[in-house]
């Protein structure tokens, strides 16, 4: 297990609930501590800029601070074992943030833009799976590793790869290589996408949709969106959740394919399989959005819910940095990475074109 592997708190099933809760506290404190420090550093910059307007101080958002601080820790001193169970809770904070951000979307927005996203996702899925499969064959990658890379890059990164792991039974090495490639590409996207967005003068909505459609892993995708602006971050959530909802269908298709070749177990109950693979947190996001649309909350309460979602994203962003060990990611072999990079460049370009096309044809809001 490499230094950047962070075990889940739920793995330790032999511990009592109270001890497990105690075990996650140090890591949770680290996540919130880094997030708060990032926020403080952003405020300090603003203060500095107000007091000394002539001094050129680059404005760095708390999102970037949180990631950079997390990256610094994980790539220098490393994450001590006492913190790891708590750092793994970043996924819970990420999903809680997504559920709560539903308050910022009226159902008609979700249906309209979510519907548009679903259409774009369908095109993106077909193209990215085809390209990844082609590149995998070209670079002579093991077939199941190619499948994992195609699943990871077309839907939602690590979650999709993990969902596929049980269904198509790849070599453990293939799974870890595919995850490493997807995480490396996510780390690259964090720093390249916002720059490209600014270069192209993209709108908040257009950029947010692009980040949600093109960046694979949910955490990296949301951070990439948030780095461009708060509104962009919200649109990223919507596009990304639409994309994630396809996870069951794609994994099922691959499971049936490998099963038909006798290289994976049969899938007897396909409906149950789809439900088991469906990311349930999307239902929470929709529930809050429906309540907001129905007028269940006042304007002030909606603002509070939105702010709560930002508080939930704060430790999640810190977690993205903390669980990324660049050296371990790069050490996974060059061929899957080259396939991933080529495929991702294609996906980024095609989704960018799709977003521009949809905007120019007036299908966005």
């Amino acid at each position, binding site marked *: 297990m490499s230094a950047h592997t962070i075990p889940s708190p739920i793995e330790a099933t032999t511990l009592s609930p109270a001890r497990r809760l105690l075990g996650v506290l140090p890591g949770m404190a680290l996540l919130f501590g880094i997030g708060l420090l990032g926020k403080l550093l952003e405020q300090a910059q603003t203060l500095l800029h107000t007091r000394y307007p002539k001094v050129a101080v680059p404005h760095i958002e708390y999102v970037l601070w949180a990631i950079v601080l997390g990256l610094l820790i994980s790539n220098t001193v490393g994450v001590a074992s006492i913190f790891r169970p708590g750092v*793994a809770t970043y996924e819970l904070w990420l*999903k809680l943030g997504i559920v709560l951000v539903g308050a910022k979307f009226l159902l008609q927005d979700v249906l309209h833009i979510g519907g548009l996203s679903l259409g774009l996702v369908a095109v993106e899925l077909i193209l990215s799976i085809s390209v990844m499969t082609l590149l995998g064959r070209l670079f002579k990658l093991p077939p199941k590793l190619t499948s994992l890379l195609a699943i990871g890059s077309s839907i939602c990164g690590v979650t999709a790869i*993990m969902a596929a792991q049980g269904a198509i039974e790849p070599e453990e090495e293939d799974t*870890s290589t595919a*995850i490493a490639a997807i995480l490396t590409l996510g780390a690259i996207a964090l720093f390249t996408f916002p720059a490209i967005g600014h270069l192209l003068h993209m709108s908040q909505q257009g950029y947010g949709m692009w980040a949600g459609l093109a960046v694979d892993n949910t955490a990296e995708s949301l951070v990439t969106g948030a780095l461009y602006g708060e509104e962009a971050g919200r649109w990223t959530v919507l596009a990304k959740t639409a994309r994630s909802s396809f996870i069951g269908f794609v994994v099922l298709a691959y499971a049936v394919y490998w099963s038909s070749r006798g290289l994976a177990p049969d899938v007897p109950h396909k409906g149950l399989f789809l439900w088991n693979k469906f990311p349930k947190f999307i239902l929470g996001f929709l529930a*809050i959005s429906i309540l907001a649309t129905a007028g269940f909350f006042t304007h002030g309460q909606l603002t509070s*819910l939105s702010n709560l979602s930002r508080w939930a994203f704060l430790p999640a962003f810190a977690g993205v940095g903390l669980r990324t060990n660049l050296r371990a990611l790069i050490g996974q072999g060059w061929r899957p990475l080259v396939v991933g990079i080529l495929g991702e460049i294609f996906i980024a370009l095609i989704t960018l074109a799709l977003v521009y096309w949809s905007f120019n044809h007036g299908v966005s809001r």
Partner: protein
Amino acid sequence: MANLNHTLPTAGRINIDLIAIGIGLTLAALIRFNILPSISF
């Protein structure tokens, strides 16, 4: 082995999703009935 454990294979993912929904809806209810004060960021 790379980052295999940060997302759980099966049941863990579902549990985390349900926990996130549970916490989210509870917080929404607490805000709706003014049990939680106004939250700023």
